[in-house]
């Protein structure tokens, strides 16, 4: 016999009890052409983690928009970068945002980093029917502060579409332009100077923007960075003090220096 009472602090079980489940898995064979998002990445820099993404969404060979924010602040200590189908990915972000805050407020303590990492894995597993049918595939990146360490250290995780989670030691990338990004990050980490993990913020932002410029040369689904048209990226950094957004004006300034 099922118990209708929600699990304390678990927003998903509260939604189930009220019969408003997110991420319904039914799909029609006549599903429309999907809007997709493309290149996101994260790497450790001197002060914490930088997470960035281009702003293009495509549907087949069409550019839907160049103004999508694919790096999302989930709460004061966690970031999500989405690659894949935005319809599903944005819903996952919304579920996580509400779930983490719901837990913190109702249980009077923040959710631990391992629990946050698994919460995203759980959503990916629940999205399996859509993934298996080739629509609704999402391959996100997650970054969070681990308050269990002193000082609190940020960590990067990446996932496969089935929900397996992996800890990325130095960097991670996802989306159609990720191959280029990973190659450059790998080279820079091994042979470059300074290594990404040694860069100060202005240099790290400049490096991230240049990564996207290069990725967009090889991948039409990755929106580029063009200071002349004031087209920049979505960049957020996660440090011990929390999340900070690097606005377009700051990006332009860092790119000039």
């Amino acid at each position, binding site marked *: 016999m099922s118990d209708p009472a929600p699990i304390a602090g678990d927003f998903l079980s509260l939604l189930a009890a009220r019969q*408003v489940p997110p991420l319904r898995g039914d799909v029609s064979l006549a599903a429309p052409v999907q809007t997709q998002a493309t290149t996101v990445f994260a790497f450790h820099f001197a002060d914490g983690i930088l997470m960035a993404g281009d702003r293009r969404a495509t549907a087949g060979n069409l550019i839907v928009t160049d103004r999508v924010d694919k790096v999302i602040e989930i709460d004061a200590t966690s970031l999500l970068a989405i690659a894949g189908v935005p319809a599903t990915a944005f819903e996952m972000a919304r579920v996580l945002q509400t779930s983490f805050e719901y837990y913190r407020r109702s249980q009077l303590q923040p959710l631990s980093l391992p629990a946050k990492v698994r919460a995203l894995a759980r959503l990916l597993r629940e999205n399996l029917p859509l993934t298996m049918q080739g629509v609704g595939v999402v391959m996100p990146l997650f970054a969070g502060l681990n308050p269990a360490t002193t000082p609190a250290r940020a960590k990067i995780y990446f996932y496969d579409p089935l929900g397996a989670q992996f800890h990325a030691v130095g960097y991670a990338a996802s989306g159609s332009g990720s191959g280029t990004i990973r190659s450059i990050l790998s080279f820079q980490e091994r042979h470059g100077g300074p290594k990404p993990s040694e860069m100060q913020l202005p240099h790290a932002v400049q490096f991230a923007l240049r990564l996207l410029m290069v990725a967009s040369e090889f991948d039409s689904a990755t929106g580029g960075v063009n200071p002349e048209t004031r087209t920049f990226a979505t960049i957020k950094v996660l440090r011990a003090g929390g999340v900070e957004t690097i606005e377009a004006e700051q990006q332009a300034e860092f790119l000039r220096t």
Partner: protein
Amino acid sequence: MTEEPYRWLEAIENRREYVREQIKGGSPVFAASLPDGILLLGVGTGNSKVFELFDRHALAGLGHPADMEKIRQAAIDAAHLEAFTRAPEDVSLRRLVSFGLSPQLKTHFEQIYSAPYLVELLLAEVAAEPGHDLLFRLHFDGAFRYETKGIVLAAGMPDLEKAAQEWLSRNAAEKTERRDLVDLLLQAWWCLIEYKSFTENPPSEEERRAGWRAAANGKVVEIGWLARTSLRLARFETLTLEQIGL
């Protein structure tokens, strides 16, 4: 027996007396609208009086901890469901109290074969502009009133609460700094818990100040702050006496 109208009325009156008797020794709580946000204050044991509910909403209360917890949880559930099914901007204290908490409290209070909730509550919603805040005073029987500015308090005894409310309204008008206001609220808190008169031979300011310092020793002064402007959606933070300079 209770089918007879006068028996039912007697039962309700008995419940009202019972609830007031149970919570008359509770530690009062306060909510005050300031130019930069809303301040909530209670003196308890830490995480026992003042709580965050949602992005712009907070709760302070006194009464039985288990009942406080049920109300708090119900409010958090309702606010987060509303935010998820609509949008965080649609979470409104007016709706939460009028259509959610108040009817539930009233129904529960009038079901005379179950135990009533032993709570007296304050709920606050910070607005974009001063003068548009919402400070709700919600009673154990579901009755409520609200203010859009000034100070509201909840205490276990209605007469003393009324006297303290009038005293605070007179004395807090010029207090726009958090430090000064918290000091004044703690003076009122001490007078309430010591049953001091606010009208006839009230204690001097020095007595009140020394009184709250002594009475709060060994307890936690719980201060919640709902910032009017912030880069973050969640406006609530907890403050300590040291942080506000007391």
